[in-house]
């Protein structure tokens, strides 16, 4: 317990790689006015990193409180729920009504609604059936499909002009963000990360399982609720900025367990965050600047992440 066991060398290498990727992202293929390039790409870079860390942290937290390494907030339908909430809002209030709330008001309202909904849905699910993995997966898949179908149903009914309000939230893109929300989003993510860091030891104990955590005097339900709240906020922010990124979280947390195997959240939070940013920044640089490919990065990440999900599932079934 405590910092002594940190794999400093591996974390340093990850940090170095990330720094290189960031430099490459900022400089490769840039022509013209540096002031403009740096400001323009800097904002994009900030968005990518913020989302990367939000996704890795929310996934790690979810896996800790749900006691398994296969499920993630997006597999359980958290971000689909966020998109559904926005769509329903457009549907019932209309684009004009949404605009009158302003971007911050809208975002706050969405986040609060997602918080409430996730406590109701996922809270009861984890409390009642947290140990039953099959049930959790099935419920997640069903909920996710339900949210997506409701979303697409509602989308068909609304005015095409109003659809623009939903678009950013519905598709993952690391090229077009909601810039208005970027800075407030980053601030919220930093606050969440700072809070998660303060409860890292409690999370370590929770990951040992219900009985052991109770024996060690930890209040399991309280930590689960705190974590669920943080997850809902992080998912809101990252979905609001770039849209849903389905398998990114699963991919990066699985890699983090391989690269820095550790029972401690201090190590895992850092390494999964670094790996997440490295994949996003490095991948985006490679796709956009070097290979000049038009395939969105999110598609490739989902493809690889989806394979990892299947592998983990098969491994688990074999046991």
């Amino acid at each position: 317990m405590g910092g002594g066991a940190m794999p400093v060398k591996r974390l340093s290498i990850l940090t170095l790689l990330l720094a290189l990727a960031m430099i490459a992202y900022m400089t490769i293929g840039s022509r013209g006015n540096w002031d403009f390039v740096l400001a323009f790409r800097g904002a994009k870079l900030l968005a990518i990193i913020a989302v990367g860390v939000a996704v890795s942290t929310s996934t790690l937290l979810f896996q800790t409180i749900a006691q398994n390494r296969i499920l993630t907030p997006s597999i359980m339908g958290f971000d689909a729920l966020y998109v559904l909430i926005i769509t329903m809002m457009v549907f019932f209030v209309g684009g004009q009504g949404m605009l009158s709330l302003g971007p911050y008001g809208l975002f706050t309202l969405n986040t609060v609604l997602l918080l409430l909904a996730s406590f109701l849905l996922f809270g009861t699910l984890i409390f009642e059936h947290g140990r039953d993995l099959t049930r959790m997966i099935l419920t997640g898949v069903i909920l996710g499909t339900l949210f997506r179908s409701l979303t697409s149903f509602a989308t068909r009914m609304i005015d095409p002009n109003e659809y623009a309000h939903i678009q950013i939230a519905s598709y993952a893109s690391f090229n077009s963000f909601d810039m208005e929300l970027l800075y407030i989003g980053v601030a919220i993510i930093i606050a969440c990360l700072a809070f998660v860091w303060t409860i890292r030891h409690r999370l370590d104990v929770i990951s040992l399982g219900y009985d052991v955590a109770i024996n060690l005097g930890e209040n399991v339900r309280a930590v689960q609720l705190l974590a669920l709240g943080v997850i809902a906020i992080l998912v809101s922010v990252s979905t609001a900025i770039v849209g849903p990124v389905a398998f990114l979280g699963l991919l990066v947390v699985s890699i983090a367990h391989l690269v820095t195997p550790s029972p401690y959240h201090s190590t895992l939070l850092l390494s999964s965050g670094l790996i997440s940013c490295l994949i996003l920044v490095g991948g985006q640089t490679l796709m956009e600047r070097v290979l000049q490919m038009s395939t969105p990065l999110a598609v490739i990440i989902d493809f690889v992440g989806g394979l990892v999900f299947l592998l983990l599932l098969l491994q688990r079934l074999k046991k």
Partner: protein
Amino acid sequence: MISVQNLTHQLGQQTILNELSLSIPKGKVTALVGANGAGKSTLLSLIARLMKLQKGQILIDNMSVGDTPNDALAKKLSILPQSIHMEPRLTVRELVSFGRYPHAKGRMQPGDREKVAEAIKVLDLVDLADRQLDTLSGGQRQRAYVAMTYAQDTDYMLLDEPLNNMDIAASRALMRVLRDLCAHHGRTIVIVLHDINYASAYADNVVALAEGKIDQQGTPLDVVDSAFLQRIYGTAAKVHILDDRPFVQV
């Protein structure tokens, strides 16, 4: 002293414990015995607040289970549950270090590290300390769990069938460690045992459960005889007395 009063526990329609009252003396090894489904594990889990109290009262010294904050109780009482499925990549030392959590809250002091080293030594795990749990045998893993409970350094230690997966050498070694903890460190041990002979050989006090109630309580010599085995387990077996300890001929 652990004092249990009028404890009733139901799962669905089924009554697991029925108005059960019991006193477990301090500084002794108490064995809980009984047929499968008699309510031993439920009783232990309720004492250790792993399950929610439905009806009745449990006092540990003067702390009431259910009203005492979780972390305060964790310094008084520890439990080794029957089935723990622990993160397999933990090393033995990391696992045992978690035993200090109620005291250190994640910030280990030199005193905590000493306690961890002591637990590893007492449970004979020195050579295995840096191995991961999934590389150990069932018995070695069980010893590592007991070492974690030891490091927690509580007056009361509850163990739910710790001899599962253990061969005779490991079982005897563990029972001796528990006896020693009781005799020389003043710990109170409550242990659920399947094998009545281990209870007879190592316990000061035997508590027999049947159908959610206390059937009998006393020294092994008072409790264990042929009539007792017939009543509790429904099996006819001879009981011999050797050095003031009863032994069941199996």
